[in-house]
């Protein structure tokens, strides 16, 4: 799979996790692409932490309104029924458990459900933005990312980078499989049949629990 195929494959699988009526926050990067793959029979409410619910598709060049942006600062649209609010309300929604699912990328995730995605000391210090609040407050935390960083494992026994939050991740979805974090272990629930179990384990530093996982749907 090339880069775009991997992105679309992961995004398609993430989108199947949603239920009708869910309030969902999608992070910047790969998670943003999930919006393009929501099943037709599901209606969700996309929240953006800069202050809106009802995030719509990106506008055409001619229809751009620079007063409507997502949390990445990109111009977006608002669907019917959507609304705006201030940052205090927005984070009340987030911390208050009113977001059903948050989808984020990560630099590292570990088997305790801790994640690290906001700083590489000495190299990259973008800041945490709303990520710490989102993973702490959302009912379900899904990490959507490539399985490794150019072959270097990102799914670890223990994160080595400064944490974004402790014990908050529920599900990891990569091009290799779907993994659930439960009781300090990572369970491989689904796998991409393009890879063997050995290859998936080799790309993962934490020991996976592999107990009759099912094949992932390869249709994108």
């Amino acid at each position, binding site marked *: 799979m090339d880069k775009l195929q991997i992105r679309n494959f992961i995004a398609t699988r993430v989108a199947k996790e949603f239920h009708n009526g869910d309030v969902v926050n999608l992070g910047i990067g790969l998670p943003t692409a999930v919006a393009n793959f929501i099943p037709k029979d599901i209606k969700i409410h996309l929240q953006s932490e800069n202050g809106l619910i009802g995030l719509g598709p990106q506008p055409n060049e001619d229809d751009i309104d620079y007063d409507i942006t997502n949390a990445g600062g990109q111009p977006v649209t608002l669907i019917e029924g959507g609304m705006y609010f201030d940052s205090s309300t927005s984070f009340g929604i987030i911390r208050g458990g009113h977001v059903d699912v948050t989808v984020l990328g990560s630099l590292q995730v570990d088997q305790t459900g801790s994640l690290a995605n906001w700083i590489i000391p000495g190299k990259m210090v973008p800041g*945490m933005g709303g990520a710490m609040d989102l993973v702490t407050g959302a009912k379900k935390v899904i990490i959507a990312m490539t399985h490794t960083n150019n072959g270097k494992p990102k799914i670890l026994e223990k994160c080595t980078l400064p944490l974004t939050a402790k014990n908050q991740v529920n599900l990891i979805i990569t091009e290799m499989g779907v993994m659930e974090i439960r009781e300090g272990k990572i369970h491989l629930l689904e796998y991409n049949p393009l890879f063997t179990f050995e290859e998936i384990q080799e790309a993962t530093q934490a020991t996976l629990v592999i107990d009759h996982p099912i094949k992932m749907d390869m249709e994108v």
Partner: protein
Amino acid sequence: MKEIIKIDDLKFHVFDGMSIMVGGFMAVGTPEFLIDELVQLGVKNLTIICNDAGFVDRGVGKLIVNGQVHKLIASHIGLNPEAGRLMSEGLMECELIPQGTLIERIRCGGSGLGGFLTPTGIGTIVEEGKKIIQSEGKDYILELPLRADLALIEGTTVDQFGNVLYTKTTRNFNPVMATATDKVIVGARKMIESIDPDCVMTPHIFVDYMIMGGQ
């Protein structure tokens, strides 16, 4: 009745070493023309409190690039590489705060609260040096209120009384910051006689001055 002042009068309300809260999220909802005036005036050693570091050519990013910021308090600086450079070279102090904690600290500062308890940041470096309080079996960080000397707010529509309405996602930090500073200046895009009382987002009692400008 609030005083409408001219952009040239901004110089009477700023001084070296002051703290300024600036509304906006990635410069959306930032009163850009007031930032331009601060760049012109060259006030320095500023403590800037803003959601993010803007871009090198937009929002508070312009003040950072111009070397006017001594300390930045923000949740994210990733889209302004110059902010990252100044921070790592020790030329600008930078305090990174989770976004929900930042806005809530400002809300506390404006509403007479001594702080609040949040689960955000527990088990991370954010909790370092802070009081951890257990309540009903769960750990929380005690976060303290945040205030500043001045707030620069972007109002989409203001009325002659000083009431403010913000459009779309320009609202973000603006109405909360307007409650938490000694002085509040609204950069107004449009002025009308009176905003429908049901639609006022910042009551005029919070506003000190209005300056017309911006798009």
